[in-house]
C-alpha cells in the first residue's frame, strides 16, 4: 500500500499544482512524512484526514479542511476556484484504504468530488488483502453508478521498483467533471516556476541586474559603433536629414556628405530610437511557468507537512510586507498600525428559520451565506417564528465560518 500511495501522490502531482488530500488511518498518516522524505515532500501539501473521522458529517466537512489547510480565507471548495487562490484549483483526494471506509461515506466523497466544478481527482486505492479478489470491482460496486473509469494504469500490479510487500494494489480513478480534461501526460517540472515577484527582494535584484546589463551593453555599443563600423556604413543624412542604422536606431553623430554634421551647433543625442516612444518599451521577462501575477509569499504552497495530529490545520496568516524603501532622506519610523482583521464570509442558518441581528444590525432572515464579518467575536440575536429569541456569541475565523442557530 505504501508504494502505491506514494506513486499515486506522484501521479497526483502531475495534475498540475495539485494539492493532495490523503485520507488514511492514523498509522499511515504518521508514517507519511517519513515516506515522503525523498524529495516529494517539498512540493505538496498533505491534508491529513484520519480514517476514523470518515462519516457523512466528516466528509461534508472535508472541503473546509482542505481550504483551511491550503490557506484560503473563504473555503469554497465546491466552487469554480478556491477563492483568492486561482492557481490552486486542483486538488487530488487520495484515499489509500478505500475499502475500509463506510460505503455511504465513500459515495458522499464521490458526490462531492463529482458535483463540484473544481478540477480535482478522487483516487481510491484498495488493497486486495482487505478480503476482495477484485478490489477495483468491489470499489465500483460500492460506489454504484458514477464510476466512470477504472484506471488501467492504476490497476496494474506495481512495477518491480515500486513493488511492496502487499500483494496487489489497485486504483479506481474518478475524473472530475472539468470542462477541460487534466493534462496528465505533461511531466511536472521539478523546479518552481521562475516568477519575478513584484516587490520581493529577489525579484528586485534580478530586475536590477537585467537593467544594469542592458544599460552597459547599450553604452558599450554606443561607444564602439563609431569606431568599429566602417565609415559610411551608417548612411548620413537622408532626405529628412538623419541617417538610419541597421540596428534600428537613427544616428546623428556622423558627418554628412557635405562634411558637416546635420545638427551642427547643437549637442545631438548619441542614440535615438527609430520611433518615438519605442525606447521606453518595458523590459519583458518571459517565464516558462504559468503567469501567476504578483505573488505574495503567503500565496505559495507551504513547504513541508503539517503534523498529522494537528487537525484541523491552522490557517497561515498572510504577513504584511514591511520591507524598507530606500530613499534619499532618512524618515522617522512609521507608527506600527494594528492590522485590520480579515473579513470572512459567514454562513448562517436556523431551524426552521429566524430573523437575525448581528452586533445590533438586522441582517434579514436565514438562510444567509453572503455575510462578510470581521474575524473575532460577534453577537447574534435570532428571533424565531414562534417568538423565541436566542442570543449567541459566535467566534469567526477562517476555520469557523458556518453557524447553525437552534
Amino acid at each position, binding site marked *: 500500500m505504501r508504494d502505491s500511495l506514494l506513486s499515486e501522490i506522484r501521479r497526483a502531482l502531475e495534475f498540475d499544482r495539485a494539492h493532495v488530500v490523503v485520507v488514511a488511518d492514523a498509522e499511515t498518516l504518521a508514517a507519511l512524512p517519513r515516506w515522503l522524505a525523498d524529495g516529494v515532500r517539498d512540493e505538496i501539501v498533505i491534508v491529513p484526514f484520519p480514517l476514523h473521522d470518515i462519516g457523512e458529517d466528516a466528509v461534508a466537512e472535508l472541503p473546509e479542511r482542505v481550504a483551511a489547510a491550503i490557506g484560503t480565507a473563504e473555503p469554497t471548495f465546491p466552487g469554480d476556484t478556491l477563492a483568492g487562490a486561482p492557481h490552486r484549483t486542483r486538488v487530488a483526494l487520495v484515499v489509500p484504504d478505500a475499502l475500509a471506509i463506510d460505503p455511504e461515506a465513500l459515495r458522499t466523497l464521490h458526490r462531492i468530488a463529482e458535483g463540484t466544478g473544481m478540477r480535482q481527482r478522487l483516487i481510491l486505492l484498495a488493497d486486495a488483502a482487505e478480503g476482495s479478489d477484485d478490489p477495483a470491482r468491489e470499489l465500483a460496486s460500492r460506489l454504484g*453508478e458514477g464510476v466512470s473509469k477504472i484506471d488501467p494504469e492504476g490497476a496494474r500490479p506495481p512495477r518491480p521498483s515500486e513493488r511492496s510487500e502487499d500483494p496487489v494494489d489497485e486504483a479506481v480513478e474518478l475524473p472530475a467533471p472539468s470542462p477541460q480534461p487534466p493534462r496528465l501526460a505533461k511531466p511536472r517540472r521539478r523546479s518552481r516556476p521562475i516568477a519575478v515577484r513584484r516587490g520581493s527582494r529577489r525579484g528586485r535584484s534580478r530586475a536590477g541586474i537585467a537593467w544594469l546589463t542592458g544599460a552597459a551593453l547599450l553604452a558599450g555599443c554606443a561607444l564602439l559603433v563609431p569606431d568599429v563600423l566602417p565609415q559610411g556604413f551608417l548612411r548620413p543624412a537622408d532626405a529628412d536629414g538623419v541617417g538610419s542604422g541597421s540596428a534600428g536606431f537613427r544616428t546623428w553623430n556622423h558627418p554628412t556628405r557635405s562634411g558637416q554634421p546635420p545638427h551642427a551647433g547643437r549637442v545631438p543625442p548619441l542614440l535615438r530610437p527609430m520611433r518615438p516612444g519605442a525606447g521606453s518599451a518595458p523590459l519583458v521577462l518571459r517565464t516558462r511557468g504559468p503567469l501567476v501575477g504578483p505573488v505574495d509569499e503567503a500565496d505559495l504552497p507551504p513547504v513541508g507537512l503539517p503534523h498529522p495530529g494537528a487537525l484541523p490545520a491552522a490557517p497561515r496568516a498572510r504577513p504584511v510586507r514591511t520591507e524598507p524603501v530606500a530613499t534619499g532622506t532618512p524618515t522617522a519610523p512609521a507608527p506600527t498600525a494594528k492590522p485590520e482583521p480579515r473579513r470572512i464570509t459567514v454562513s448562517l442558518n436556523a431551524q426552521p428559520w429566524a430573523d437575525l441581528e448581528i452586533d445590533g444590525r438586522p441582517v434579514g*432572515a436565514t438562510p444567509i451565506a453572503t455575510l462578510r464579518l470581521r474575524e473575532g467575536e460577534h453577537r447574534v440575536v435570532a428571533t424565531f417564528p414562534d417568538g423565541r429569541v436566542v442570543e449567541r456569541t459566535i467566534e469567526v475565523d477562517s476555520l469557523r465560518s458556518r453557524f447553525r442557530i437552534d
Partner: protein
Amino acid sequence: MPQRRTPRTRATALRGGRRALAIGACLLGLVGAPAAARAATDEAPEYASLVRSVSEVESLIRDAHFRTAVGVAESTREWADRIPSRPEVRELRSRLQVLLATAWIALGQDDDARRAMRRAVAVWPLLELDTDSSSPRVVALWRAVRSDQHAAGGSR
C-alpha cells in the same frame, strides 16, 4: 319462443359472473405480480438513494454548508432525472429542487434560485410549502414562481 328468466336463474347468472371476475383477477395477479415485484426491486435502490441524497442535502443546508449542498444536489439531480417518473419520485425531485433553491438563495444567486424553484413547481405542480416552517425568503420565491406560472398559463 323466448325463455323468460326466473329470479332464480338471474341469481345464478350473477353468481357465475362474479366467479368469473374473481378468477380473472386471480389470473391477472398471478401474471402481473412478478413483473410488478421485479419493477419495484429495480427501482427500489434508486429510490432509496434518492431519499438518502435528499436527506443529505437537507442536513447540509441545516448546517449551513450551502455550497456543498449545491454540489450534492446538482449531482443528485443528474441521475435522479433518469429514475422512472412515479409520484413519490417526482415529489422527491421537487423537494430536491426546493432545497437547491434554498441553497442558492442563501448564496445570493437569485437567478439560479428562481430556476431551481421553477423546476420544482414543474416537476410537482401540487407543491405546497409550509409557510410557518419555511424561510420567508423561500416562500416569497415560491409564490413569485407560482404566480409567474399562473400568469403564463392564463395568457395562453
